[in-house]
């Protein structure tokens, strides 16, 4: 199994979720994060002074999937999350040893 962790632009969440359900992935976990990278930040104004904000709001999506569909999942996310502008984000894939469904104690694939 793999965990596919994607950093995306916040407003892309619905599209990514739909893309994943479309390929049969029915579970995921989302975290609000702040990202730093190539994309330039914005400035806030306070009493005539400017404050640069270099950390931008992003969403981190984590999906545990069976290894053989990992590639498909990555493609689905890329397709759904892409705007073509700097800051679209990254997708990281890493090995998952085991998974358990707390409710039933089911293991691994059955747990997803």
């Amino acid at each position, binding site marked *: 199994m793999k965990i596919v962790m994607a950093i995306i632009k916040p407003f892309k969440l619905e599209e990514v979720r739909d893309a994943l359900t479309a390929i049969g992935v029915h579970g995921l976990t989302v975290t609000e994060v702040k990202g730093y990278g190539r994309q330039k930040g914005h400035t*806030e*104004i*306070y*009493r*005539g*002074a*400017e*404050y640069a904000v270099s950390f931008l709001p992003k969403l981190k999506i984590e999906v545990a999937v069976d290894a053989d569909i990992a590639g498909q999942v990555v493609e689905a996310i890329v397709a759904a999350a892409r705007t073509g502008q700097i800051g679209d984000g990254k997708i990281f894939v890493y090995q998952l040893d085991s998974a358990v469904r707390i409710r039933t104690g089911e293991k691994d694939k059955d747990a997803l």
Partner: protein
Amino acid sequence: MTLFRRLTGLMAALTAALMIGLAAPAAIAEDNPAPAAAQATPAAPAAAPAAAPAAQAAPAAAAPAAAPPSCSSTVLEKCTGNSGDTAWLLTSVALVLMMTIPGLGLFYGGMVSKKNVGDTVMTSFAITCLVTVIYFILTYSLAFTGGGWFIGGFSRVFLQGIHYDLASGANTPNGLAPTIPETVYMMFQMTFAIITPALIAGSFAERMKFSAMLWFIGLWAIFVYAPVAHWVWGPDGFMSAANVDAKGNFQGAFQVLDFAGGTVVHINAGVAGLMSCLVLGRRKTPAPGHNMVLTYIGAALLWVGWFGFNAGSAVSAGLQAGMAMTVTQIATAVAALTWMFVEWAHRGKPTVIGIASGAVAGLVAITPASGFVGPVGALVIGIACGVGCYLGATALKHAFGYDDALDAFGVHAVGGAIGAILTGVFAVNEFSGHSGLLEGDVGQFINQFKGVITVAVYDAIVTFIILKIVDVAVGLRVSEEVERDGLDLALHGEVVH
């Protein structure tokens, strides 16, 4: 520990004060008209600018009742003055208190970091409580009873005898507000004594110890606010327009026009603020305000409450109150738009905190002028302070590098000075019996400068001394860790969840 020891000291001090209160024989404190009768201060047919209207209105208002109304032995047949004037002043007390809590606390609270918002709003709340106690025990008497040019007397300590004076008709020591009960006038002035020190907090926000703040403000209320209020508004203060003899001849040094507190409140608070941020030093990591919605609420309540501040200073519900309210609205709106457009041009965007700050700047600048100028004067004052205070909060501050956190100096001292001086330019005799430069009164124009400078200098010196004493006694500034983790959690054990 040390904090705790200091606190005990603080409690001791206050409790002492309170106990004195208990000690003071209830008899004197409440039942004995004598002292009141005793201290006869000059009746003030044309007392303070603020009082003038009321004073002259008195006969008019009382007329139908064959003035002065004869007063019988039971409380309520005592002459209650003019019930309409009293109703408006009772309302004004509520409005001006609302300016400080919740108004000012929210205005400031929205401009600090989230980790300090609790300390910031609590500062306004605690100052309200502390000054109330000091004022009713001591400073009302020091500021608003007759004494001398520089300070008043002790005849109203613990408010003794305050209940009786309307009964004594013409000889009331409260010539400053002849048509309302002195209790109401005392309460109205109390709200001014409260908000002034609360304004200072804008300069030392996010880094002063809460305990040090209590000591500093307590001493400042006694040694700075009380005398300055006496000078400008006391029955015999040396700049006070109320300081006139029976024939109405001025008995002071030079007469300053300050309708609702340009010098007494705003310059006074602003300069004290400057001293406090100079003594405290800069914050480690200043950040933009955390919640402009709180600042919006605060600015809005300040605006609404300010009608009590300025129109209430007519101490009557009549023509002067109406015009004071009118010019307040105009100057505020113009200043808010001016600040917004200046920032928009300067930084490319109009901000919530900007328009709110501009409104407060306008309210500050029109304060001394509100009973004296007309709509066009208000328009000019609004534009002038909109630009002036924006520069005060930006260019000026950055040029000198002091950390006036929420711009108590940049807005209140700068705006108060602009308003005080332009009062000397735009005062219209027809409205107030006083003329400004435009009507050819150069002397008044110069007096306004004198007033501003006198107050600023005295304030700066005494505030500096108080700060140094408090620093030695309890330490002014929180530790770096406390500043970093936030005053809310470290000093108050609370956080916004």
